[in-house]
């Protein structure tokens, strides 16, 4: 039981810090605009050239085989430096763990290097208009045709889809509620898929609707076996909810800036800032403990829901506090944009109502 970074971990931290100091691109335009999307891709290509875009991946796919602890160190330095948001996040955080766990060697070789270099940017496509929280109610379907499948139907809240090159999601290959779903990869630049961006509260287009009209995909675009999609997606969303989607680095950086913002403020607000700062610390320490368990071979399982609820509500608390500190002056600052972004945290990746149900039933053992 210790909290000591190894010399190797300390060296790695220093390398990342120095590299970021030398290469930080400054503030980029929003990645949900055409120009911002290009700028973010260029930045991530630069990260990839230094093998810093996916440090925990094996070297052959563009990573450096870093441990989970080293990955956490990378994240702390990345966000403390206020480096740009990651336009490749859907791919690296959601799809890549799925390919590592369920993909073929061919699929990994085909898709991971381009993902690491941000050559190909991935959109996730979980939700449908009538299936938000209730994924098993999906109706978009895939029909067997020689050599592959044809995708038809309607997806929504597809993040990054406005500018991404590819997407991944579940399609129905039979009528069984859970076992009738299959996990597909698909291109977004074909005429048989229409991408309609959705304007959000901030007026930008972080999401899109996708309408599939018989889009052909070859068998090589199926991940796992047909009918296994539900199981595979649950494993992926578990990683979405848990350790991988939200490393503590971002919240630590936010908490540090929040404490600065609250300096000299009304003690009631300063106290809320102090609570947030300690909560971010708690999330960091909790993640170190979780990383240790995972490195020892454990599965994160339903406990991932604890993390999802905690970080999403902490993020919202921090940005709501910033609004309270700034009052009418909050509008137009990054804090207000961050507030709008944080509002979505308790909703996406499984609403926090769903997560609390998982905690109650699968962690605590309460009856369904």
């Amino acid at each position, binding site marked *: 039981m210790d909290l000591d970074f190894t010399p190797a971990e300390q060296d790695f931290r220093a390398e990342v810090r120095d590299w970021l100091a030398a290469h930080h691109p400054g503030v980029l335009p929003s990645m949900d605009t055409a120009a911002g999307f290009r700028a973010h891709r260029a930045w991530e290509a630069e990260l990839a050239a230094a093998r810093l875009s996916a440090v925990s991946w094996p070297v052959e796919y563009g990573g450096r085989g870093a441990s989970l602890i080293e990955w956490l160190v990378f994240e702390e330095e990345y966000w403390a430096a206020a480096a740009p948001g990651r336009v490749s996040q859907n791919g690296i955080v959601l799809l890549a763990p799925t390919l590592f766990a369920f993909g073929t060697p061919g699929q990994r070789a085909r898709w991971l290097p381009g993902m690491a270099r941000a050559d190909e940017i991935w959109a996730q496509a979980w939700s449908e208009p009538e299936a938000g*929280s209730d994924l098993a109610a999906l109706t978009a379907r895939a029909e067997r045709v020689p050599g592959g499948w044809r995708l038809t139907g309607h997806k929504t809240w597809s993040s990054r889809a406005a500018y991404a090159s590819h997407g991944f999601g579940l399609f129905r290959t039979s009528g069984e509620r859970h076992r009738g779903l299959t996990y597909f990869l698909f291109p977004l630049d074909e005429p048989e898929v229409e991408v309609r961006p*959705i304007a*959000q509260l901030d007026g930008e287009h972080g999401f899109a609707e996708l309408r599939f009209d018989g889009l052909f995909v070859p068998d090589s675009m199926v991940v796992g076996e047909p009918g296994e999609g539900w199981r595979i997606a649950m494993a992926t969303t578990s990683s979405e909810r848990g350790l991988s989607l939200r490393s503590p680095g971002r919240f630590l950086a936010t908490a540090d800036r929040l404490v600065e913002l609250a300096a000299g403020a*009304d003690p009631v607000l300063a106290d809320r800032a102090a609570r947030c700062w300690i909560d971010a610390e708690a999330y960091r320490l909790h993640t170190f403990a979780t990383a240790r368990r995972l490195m020892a071979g454990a599965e994160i399982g339903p406990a991932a829901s604890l993390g999802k609820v905690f970080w999403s509500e902490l993020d919202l608390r921090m940005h709501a506090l910033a609004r309270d500190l700034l009052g*009418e002056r909050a*509008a*137009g600052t990054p804090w207000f944009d961050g507030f709008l972004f944080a509002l979505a945290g308790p909703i996406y990746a499984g*609403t926090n*109502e769903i997560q609390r149900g998982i905690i109650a039933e699968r962690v605590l053992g309460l009856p369904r």
Partner: protein
Amino acid sequence: MNFAFTDDQLAFAALVREVLAAEHGVRGDKAWARLAGAGFFGLLVPEAYGGLGLRLVDALPAVEEAGRACVAGPVIDTLVASPYVLGGGELARVAAGELRVAAGAARVADADLADLLVLAGPAGSAAVLSPQSVRLAPHPSADPGRPLFEVEATGTGGVAVPDMWRALTVATAAQLLGLARHLLATSVEYARQRVQFGRPIGSFQAVKHRLADVALAVEFAAPLVWRAALSLGERDVSAAKAASGEAAELAAGSALQVHGAIGYTHELPLRHWLARVWALSAAHGSPAEHRARIRELLPGSANGEGRWP
């Protein structure tokens, strides 16, 4: 003691609700003309100048409806500030709906639509200026339907009207109540219709309890707002603004959580109400600022007063 609105007051509020039914957050002249047609702008103007000469409290239900409708333009500033700072001729034009007034301190909302600006000076004073005599610099606003402007003016000494600023704060609180009531009703409606896991999401206990909490917050904020309109006492006004702002923020957060991702987009008009809540919650002092003020005004404090009534 009769701590309740009269049938007349409630009937006028219902009329305001009716004429604003199709409007929300859209900047333009339609809502203004309809309110003027209903006699809204004359409510607080003395009878001598064509108004009804009512007290602020009498107009609260109508102000709440303006909030509920998320109406655009300097409607409330015109209604509330005018009687404190304008002369007879101007007041007659206000009553007729022909003069628009925007009021503020560091930032003035809807200043671009105003015929006259009421600018805060030191110690509760206010100066009335023509927009032509000042420079308006746009300031970011949480609500695109309620743009903010910084006003550069010279020589803004004016009359001391602390009650006007308090009345504007109370009117903002009343609008927040209306916004919260709309958000609650919209959330209930959505939760009755949206089906997930084979049943309306409004049948889930978590959704029920969340919306019950919104109902509680609104229910117990409202009488604080009414009292503040009666007394215009400093502590009462702060309590009204803090409680109504917190209730509306809770209603906004809950609406978003109940609607899920769709609430977050331009697909639904919900965003207009969310943005208005975020804007008005901060306007005339945030809940946090008013809570801090209340601490200094409790019985036993140097500036504190006893309970009223």
